[in-house]
């Protein structure tokens, strides 16, 4: 009994972990969130910050980090229930390293563990407001960013170029944007901008529209090039959509066991929302229709993929491969469309449980146990003698 009790205790020694998780209210706001300026020797400025969305009793820590933090001074390092603080910045006469230098003003909820009685996961929030100081590069230096968006067939494509002169010299240049076919990498055409002058530290934003009347639906690449003595480049991809849903995947194997699920994954090639997309599936045995069913319907956001699901009875099927005609129906704005595709589905029998084998194994184990006890009793008797 004692041995049994020890074994019993080991088997049932359970590990209790209390996982009661709750967090205090965690929210924080900081204004202003970001500031940026071009470096000027001995520049001095006081930034006024406001911290809000904090509970009355909440303690918030304030600190400053970053590669120019040594030139910044805070008038407070802690706030209770939010409030205001100042960051005084006094830059040196010279900063050797050109480019962007970032100062981070960290405002963080201070959460102590003793707040959580019996709890394990708490939450807190930290916001880092940024102060970016741009030290000009010697000579000429231009920063450029090209942006655009996807459109639908024959809609114009809008390009925007953001240009900032980060060098000490004034610049004169004429940007261009080259358009390429993404699939073939073939050049299509060039958009030309007027000549522009940009002083040191100055920023301008330019825009241009691409007429896509002669373009087919698909993916394209735009390359912006600015030659200002050196060359600045940036590229971006864009897509011209068409009202079409592509069948990208489906259930390829079905178990021959009553009602079975059939999934169809579809992807939208349209740059607007598609409503009421669903599929009608007709499973064929040669040319004879074995069953016909519809999937659930779904809406697709621009370029989104989704799964449509349907169910059908497999009782009339036997093992083998069948063709299925999948017809997709969908609506874009006021236009309804459909498309069909033939796919192959394999029907298989569910794996059978090897009852005979299991039975033989069980009998074998029982026999072995019986033999073990018989032998043990025999040797015990002879051992005593």
């Amino acid at each position: 009994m004692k041995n049994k009790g020890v074994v019993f205790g080991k088997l049932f020694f359970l590990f209790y972990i209390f996982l009661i998780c709750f967090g205090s209210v965690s929210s924080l706001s900081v204004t202003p969130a970001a500031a940026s300026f071009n470096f000027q020797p001995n520049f001095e400025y006081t930034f006024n910050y406001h911290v809000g969305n904090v509970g009355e009793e909440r303690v918030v820590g304030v600190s400053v980090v970053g590669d120019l933090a040594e030139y910044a001074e805070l008038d407070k390092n802690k706030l209770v229930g939010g409030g205001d603080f100042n960051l005084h910045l006094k830059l040196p006469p010279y900063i050797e390293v050109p480019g962007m230098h970032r100062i981070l003003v960290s405002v963080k909820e201070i959460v102590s563990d003793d707040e959580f009685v019996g709890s394990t996961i708490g939450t807190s929030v930290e916001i880092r407001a940024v102060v970016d100081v741009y030290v000009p590069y010697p000579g000429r230096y231009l920063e450029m960013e090209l942006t655009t968006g996807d459109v639908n067939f024959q809609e114009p494509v809008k390009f925007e170029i953001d240009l900032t002169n980060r060098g000490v010299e004034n610049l004169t240049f004429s940007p261009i944007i080259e358009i390429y076919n993404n699939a073939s990498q073939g050049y299509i055409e060039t958009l030309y901008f007027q000549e522009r002058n940009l002083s040191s530290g100055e920023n301008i934003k330019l825009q241009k529209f691409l007429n896509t009347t002669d373009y087919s639906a698909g993916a394209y690449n735009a390359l912006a090039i600015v030659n200002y003595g050196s060359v600045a480049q940036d590229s971006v991809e864009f897509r011209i959509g068409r009202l079409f849903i592509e069948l990208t995947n489906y259930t390829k194997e079905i178990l021959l066991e009553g009602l079975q699920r059939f999934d169809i994954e579809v992807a939208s090639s349209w740059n607007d929302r598609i409503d009421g997309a669903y599929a009608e599936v007709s499973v064929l045995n040669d040319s004879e229709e074995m069953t016909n069913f519809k999937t659930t319907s779904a809406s697709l956001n621009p370029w989104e993929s989704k799964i449509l699901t349907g169910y059908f009875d497999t009782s009339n099927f036997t093992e083998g491969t069948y063709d299925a005609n999948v017809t997709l129906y969908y609506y874009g704005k006021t236009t309804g469309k459909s498309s069909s595709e033939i796919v192959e589905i394999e029907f298989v029998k569910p794996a059978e449980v090897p009852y005979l084998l299991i039975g033989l194994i069980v009998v074998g184990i029982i026999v072995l146990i019986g033999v073990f006890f018989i032998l043990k009793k025999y040797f015990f008797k002879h051992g005593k003698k």
Partner: protein
Amino acid sequence: MEIYNKVLVIIAVILVFVVIINVGTKSPLTGHASDTGKANLSIEAAASISFVFNTTDWGVGYVNEADTEAYLDTDAGTVVGGTWTPVTQPLVVSNDGNTNVSLNFSTSNIASAFIGGNSPAYQLKLENNGTGTCDSNNLSLSSFTEATGATELEGCKEMGYQNTMDTLNLHVNLTIPEDATIGTKSSIITAIATAVSS
């Protein structure tokens, strides 16, 4: 002649007032700017972050006798190998400000200190709540990743702020081994938002 002189005086007085008004107008900057160029100071908006849903409660439980570890997952909404109550509601982080932010996460401890035992796991995963909050190219924590304590995990490089596209779900996945130390433990997940300056 007298009228002519009076007119001249009136014009002069007006000009003096114009000069005084221009000289008296103060720059909005409180600091001193160099005379050799312009600082072009640009200041933006407000950053605001909150945990809209900050409760994950699996209750009290233990690892099943027949299992060597239990798995608690808010993404699958399951508890496997243990008796805790499954949780389907993740933590939810919202960008309530009017500027995009980058979002990272840190934790006050890691799995070995939080849970203990042989091969525990304490993992985080981020996903859009709805669509468009964090573009797939910017979403770094898209699969469960081990929490690394004070070393920040990059979550989303650019989290939007516009309504219906400003919230993210933060899922937690715990692996609790059978030899995990008994008792209540605590961990704090900190969401760190940095303004993305335009």
